[in-house]
Every structure is written in C-alpha cells, then in structure tokens.
C-alpha cells in the first residue's frame, strides 16, 4: 500500500493537515498509536463522566462574522462554518499576584484600562509594547530566538507587571523556563489578551469529531492503535513507516506531529546532532474536581485564574513533585453558554517535575497523585472559595499520563524550546507539524498542520 502522505498522530494538527491533503485529492493516512484521537488535546470518559484532557479554553476567539485572525483563517482553510466549533466566550479571567489582580476578558480595551489603573506609571510603555506586538510578523519562518524579558524590559520598568503579563502566556504555551521567545510571546499575547478565551459547550471532542468527520468524508484514512515504530530511511529520504505490529506502509512523504526529537528517534539511521531537536522539560500536574454545584453557586464566576504567591514568578521545571507557588484555576462552567453545563467542575494545573512522576512505582504513584491532589487544592484555596465540600469525583493527571498517551518525552506539554518554524527535518520528505513546529493551542495546532501541509505537501517549491 502506498500513500501520497502519511501523517503521524491524530491530534488537531495532524487532522487539520489531513483535511487539507484529502481535500486536494491526495491519498492520505493518519496513524495514531492511542485508541482514540486528540493527542495533547484529547478527551475521555471516566465513571460515567466526560472529561477533556488538555483543554482549559480555546484561545484566539473571534465572534461570528469576524474575518481576521487565526480562527477565521482555519475555518476558511478547513471549509468549516463558525457554528461548527460552537464557541461560547469566557465570562472573564484574571492574573493574581500579591497586591494586584489584573482582570481580562475578550475585549482588549478592558485589559489596557486595568493596567492603566493599577500600573499608571507603566501604561505608556505597555502601549509601546503593544505597538511592537502589532507590527511583528509571526509568518517570518527564518527568525531567530529573541528574549521576551529583554524586549519587555525596554518598555516596562516594573518587574511585577512584566511577571504578571508573562504568567498566563507562559502557563499556556512556553516550552522554556523563565523566558520565552519573542515570536512565541507575540503569538500567545494575541491569542490570549487580544483575541481571548472561549469553549465549545461539549468541550474539545466537538472540534475533534468535526475534524474527523470531514477528513473521512473527503476520503482520508484514519488508523487508530497504529503506532509508528520506525521511519524507513533511504539516503536523505523517508520511504515508509513500520508500525508497532511490524507492518510496513509506504508513502511519498511523511508529516509527523509526534514532536521533533521524538520523530528523529524513530529514524532507523544515525541523525547528525542538532540542538534544535532537543525535547522540552516543562510539564504539569492537573487535578479535575467534579462538583455537586456550579462554581458560581459558591461565589466563583471567573473562567480562569492564573495565580502566583510572590512578586517573583518561577516558570521552570519544578524541583518539588509539584510547584505549589503558582497555578491555574479553570472553571469549564464559566463560559457564556446558552444553558449551564450539567455538572460543576474545577481544574487546577501546576508545574511538575517529570522525572519524579516517571520514576515512581505504580502503587506509590497512585498514593502520590492523591497526596498532591490535596496539596494543590489546599494551595489554590488562597485564590478561590473552598469548594472541597462539594467534590463528587476527582481525577488527576501527571507528566507520566501525558507521556503514556502522547509519547512526548518528559510528558512535555508545549514541546521543544526551539521551534522548527518551517517544519523541515534532515530528511527531504519528512516534515514536522504540531507543538514543535511553533503554533500552539487548539487553533494554533490546527494552523500548524494547515501551514505545513500547504507549504511542503501541496505546493512544494
């Protein structure tokens, strides 16, 4: 069996790329090792309840009728209508540091006003920074790593404001500790502060199911439980893939969303060392608490709260199993839906130490998940009313869970610190999309698959 394109991974980027290729008549097959679709943004059912894996919110919100921005771009490219993603905007979110709370919603003016009110000395500098952000071209595939903290410090002199601005952006997309690449910063700044949060009533499964339906209707093939064990290399080219069960599939080209280092590890030859293909090491633990009330009933009506308990913000691989100093509180209920979700729930996410979680023996692992669930909740109670009496069911995932279901080294969520923006690899017909290519989030990952499919597989130079 020979394909025009094989795509590794049925996550958002792989499915979006698959739709583009199938739409233009390519014979394309998506291979997924797991039993279900989604990758880093998947969903599952536990004790009769539906849960999302990664999704707190869809970023890059644009209201119906909008024409600009990444959301409208992917709707056009994938031939979807706005209604297909059923996005309800957020109620409002905040960044909470000692002595300061900056609120934001999907109106950027509101956020600017918050900064003007709380950091009056800084607002002019902030506006200059926004001008730089607006002028930045994220489409330039040749750009080098630039320190965001240095760029920000040229405009903003209060380190507290710098940390508060960075906190949500790092939590939602930085693969590197302490600082982030300016290009990534611009992508995240636009997607979170200037465009904003939304969520489909049914969660990420709605988007994934619509992608899969469209891909199959266009004649695309999707194989689940079909992990790629090895890429077959002939000289500078990939000729096909070997699956976990030993079967071989041939293809003219391969697009991998497995991660940059993870993809090179599958090659059956020695690949010259290239530091760009080094995996990231930032990962998280997330607790999910299902509640017998909607969060608004006990006084919590914010969509997402990013908290940090000192003026310094340590975005880094946690030295403890979990870093309790900071975190993210997400309430899937607090979006402007037409009707409330059936049950309340709160998700709290904090930085974690991948090695610690990977190395625990199974029994101890379960105990530790329970212990840290309680510690994370206790720590978050400084920023949210105590909801513990309302908890009906819990689940916790760790870097180990992420590694198990996505194959990402270190259970890394935002991929490698160095992005491969043009999606190329040492092999002429092997390309990368997804987290390690450079666009992040639900909308970003789809844009990644689309961009790389367009650039290399549909319009090769």
């Amino acid at each position, binding site marked *: 069996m020979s394909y025009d394109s094989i795509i590794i991974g049925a996550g958002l980027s792989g499915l979006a790329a698959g739709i583009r290729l199938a739409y*233009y*008549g390519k014979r394309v097959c998506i291979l997924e090792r797991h039993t279900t679709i989604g990758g880093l943004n998947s969903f599952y059912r536990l004790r009769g309840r539906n849960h999302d894996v990664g999704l707190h919110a869809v970023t890059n919100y644009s209201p119906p009728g909008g024409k600009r921005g990444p959301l409208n*771009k992917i709707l*056009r*490219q994938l*031939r979807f209508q706005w209604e297909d993603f059923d996005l309800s905007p957020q109620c409002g979110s905040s960044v909470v540091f000692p002595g300061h709370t900056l609120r934001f919603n999907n109106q950027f003016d509101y956020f600017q006003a918050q900064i003007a009110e709380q950091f009056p000395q800084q607002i002019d500098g902030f506006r200059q920074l926004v001008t730089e952000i607006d002028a930045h071209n994220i489409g330039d595939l040749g750009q080098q790593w630039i320190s965001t903290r240095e760029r920000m410090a040229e405009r903003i002199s209060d380190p507290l404001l710098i940390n508060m601005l960075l906190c949500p952006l790092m939590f939602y997309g930085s693969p590197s500790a302490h600082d982030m690449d300016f290009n990534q910063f611009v992508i995240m700044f636009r997607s979170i502060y200037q465009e904003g949060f939304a969520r489909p009533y049914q969660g990420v499964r709605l988007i994934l199911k619509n992608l899969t339906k469209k891909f199959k209707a266009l004649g695309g093939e999707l194989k689940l439980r079909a992990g790629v064990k090895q890429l077959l290399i002939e000289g500078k080219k990939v000729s096909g893939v070997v699956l976990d069960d030993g079967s071989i599939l041939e293809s003219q080209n391969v697009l991998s969303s497995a991660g940059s280092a993870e993809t090179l590890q599958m090659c059956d030859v020695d690949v010259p060392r290239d530091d760009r293909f080094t995996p990231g090491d930032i990962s998280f633990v997330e607790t999910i608490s299902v509640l017998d009330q909607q969060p608004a009933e006990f006084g919590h009506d914010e969509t997402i709260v990013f908290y940090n308990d000192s003026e310094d913000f340590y975005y880094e691989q946690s030295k403890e199993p979990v870093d309790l100093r900071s975190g993210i509180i997400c309430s899937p209920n607090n979006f402007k839906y037409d009707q409330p979700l059936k049950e309340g729930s709160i998700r709290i996410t904090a930085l974690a130490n991948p090695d610690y979680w990977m190395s625990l023996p199974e029994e101890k692992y379960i105990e530790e998940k329970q212990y840290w669930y309680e510690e994370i909740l206790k720590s978050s109670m400084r920023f949210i009313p105590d909801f513990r009496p309302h908890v009906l069911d819990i689940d916790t995932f760790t870097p180990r869970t992420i590694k198990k279901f996505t194959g990402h080294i270190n259970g890394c969520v935002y991929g490698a610190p160095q992005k491969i923006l043009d999606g190329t690899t040492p092999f002429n017909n092997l390309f990368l999309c997804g987290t390690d290519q450079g666009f992040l989030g639900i909308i970003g990952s789809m844009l990644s698959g*689309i961009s790389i499919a367009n650039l290399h597989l549909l319009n090769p130079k």
Partner: protein
Amino acid sequence: MAPEQIRSVILDILARIAPDEDLSELDDSVPFREQMELDSMDFLDIVMELRKLYRVQIPEEDYGELVTMDSTVTYLTPLLKDAESTV
C-alpha cells in the same frame, strides 16, 4: 467557458472558502482582499481550487492578476476557454 461562467466558478470557490460570507453584495471592481479580507493563504487556495477543478496552472508571478473579480475573469478567460464549467 464564457466569462460569465468563469465568474460563477470563482463565486463558487469563494463560497467554499468563506461560507459565512454574503457574496451577493460583491463588487467586481473592488479587490477581494478589501471586501472579504482574503489573505495570501486564501489566494493560494483559489489557485489550488482552480488547479483541482480545471488542471489550470497559475504561476506565482501571476497571483497579482487575481486581485478583483473583474481582473480574475479577464485573466482566466483565455486559460479556461476550452474547459467545461463544473458549476
């Protein structure tokens, strides 16, 4: 295809790319970019749709010809004179 048929083909492609757009108000002499905010990704899509439907190759240096409906139809008329409309 006659120019009028080519116009319908382009409208059909635009409707596929931007299903939420009201195309009945489209002004044939005003750039698509201004009316629909089409960007370079969208123009590439028009080119690819034409390639898929009629096997017509539009070289990159000619993308500028696709600025308005009028200029697009003028540019495509000789290229598609022998093609059968699919719309």
